[in-house]
C-alpha cells in the first residue's frame, strides 16, 4: 500500500520546484516589491518548513536501513530549522541576516545525508546517480545561501539559490526506482521498472 520511493521523490520535486519559482520571482522583482504583501514573504519559508515536517513520515515509513533513517531524520530537522529561521526573518522576529546561514547549513546537512546514505557508485542505477548528483549539487549550492547571509540584496546570489532548487527538482523528477542511467544498470540492482 505504501507509495514507491520514486513517487515520494516526485512529490518532493514538486515542492522544490515551487520554492525555486518563488525564489526566482523574488530575485527578479527585488525584496522591496516582494515584501509589499505580507502573505507573499511567508510563502517559500513555509514550504521549506512544511517539507521538513513531511520528511518525518518519509523517515518513519521508508526505513530501509539505519543510515536511511538517520539521513531522512537529519534532513527533516535541517529543513525545519532553515524554514523556521527564514520565517523568523520574514516576520521580523529575527533581525540578523546571518540567520540565513541555517539554510546553508541545511544544504550541507542535506548533501551529507544524501551522499552518505547512497551506498552504490554513480553508475549503479539512475537513483544512485541522482543521489550523487543531488548531494554534490547541494555541496556547491550551499555557497548561495552562505553568500546571501553576507550580501542579502545580491540578485546573482538570489537567482543562484533559486536555480539550485529548480535543478534539485529536475533531478528528483528524473528519479525511478530501478532504471538505467546513460545505458548503465547494474545486474545487482534488480529488474528494470517500466
Amino acid at each position, binding site marked *: 500500500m505504501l*507509495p*514507491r520511493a*520514486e*513517487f515520494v521523490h*516526485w*512529490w518532493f*520535486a*514538486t515542492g522544490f*520546484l*515551487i520554492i525555486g*519559482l*518563488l525564489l*526566482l*520571482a523574488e530575485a*527578479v*522583482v527585488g525584496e*522591496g*516589491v*516582494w515584501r*509589499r*504583501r505580507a502573505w*507573499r514573504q511567508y510563502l517559500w519559508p513555509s514550504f521549506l518548513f512544511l517539507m521538513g515536517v513531511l520528511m518525518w513520515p518519509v523517515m518513519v515509513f521508508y526505513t530501509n536501513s539505519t543510515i536511511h533513517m538517520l539521513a531522512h531524520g537529519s534532513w527533516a530537522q535541517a529543513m525545519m530549522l532553515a524554514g523556521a529561521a527564514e520565517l523568523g526573518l520574514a516576520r521580523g522576529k529575527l533581525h540578523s541576516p546571518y540567520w540565513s546561514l541555517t539554510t546553508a547549513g541545511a544544504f550541507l546537512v542535506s548533501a551529507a545525508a544524501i551522499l552518505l546514505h547512497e551506498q552504490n557508485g554513480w553508475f549503479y542505477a539512475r537513483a544512485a546517480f541522482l543521489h550523487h548528483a543531488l548531494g554534490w549539487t547541494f555541496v556547491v549550492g550551499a555557497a548561495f545561501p552562505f553568500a546571501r547571509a553576507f550580501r542579502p540584496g545580491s540578485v546573482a546570489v538570489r537567482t543562484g539559490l533559486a536555480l539550485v532548487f529548480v535543478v534539485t527538482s529536475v533531478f528528483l*523528477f528524473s528519479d525511478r526506482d530501478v532504471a538505467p542511467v546513460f545505458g548503465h544498470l547494474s545486474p545487482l540492482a534488480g529488474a528494470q521498472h*517500466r
Partner: protein
Amino acid sequence: MESHFATEAVAQLRRRSLRAAAVNLIGPLTMLGGVAWAFLQPYRLTVLHPYGQGFWWLFSEPPLYVVLVGLGFALFLAPALLQDLEEAEDAPES
C-alpha cells in the same frame, strides 16, 4: 535637463518591462516545460493508459505536477506581483 529625465524615464520603463516580462514568463515557461516533458515521455502520464494501474500510479503524474505548478504561479502569484511591481516603480523616489 529634460532630455536627461526622458532618458532616465525610458531606461526605467525598459527595466520595468523586462522584469515584468520575466515574471509573466515564469508560469507559462514552467507549463511549457511540463507539456514538452509529457510529449517526450508520454509513458510518465499513466492517465493516458489507466487500465490496470494502481492508485499511486494514477495519482503520480509528474508532467502534470509541473504544469499545475506553472498554472498556479501564473494565476495566483504573478498578477499581484505585477501590480506591486508597477506601483513600486511608479511611486516617487524619496
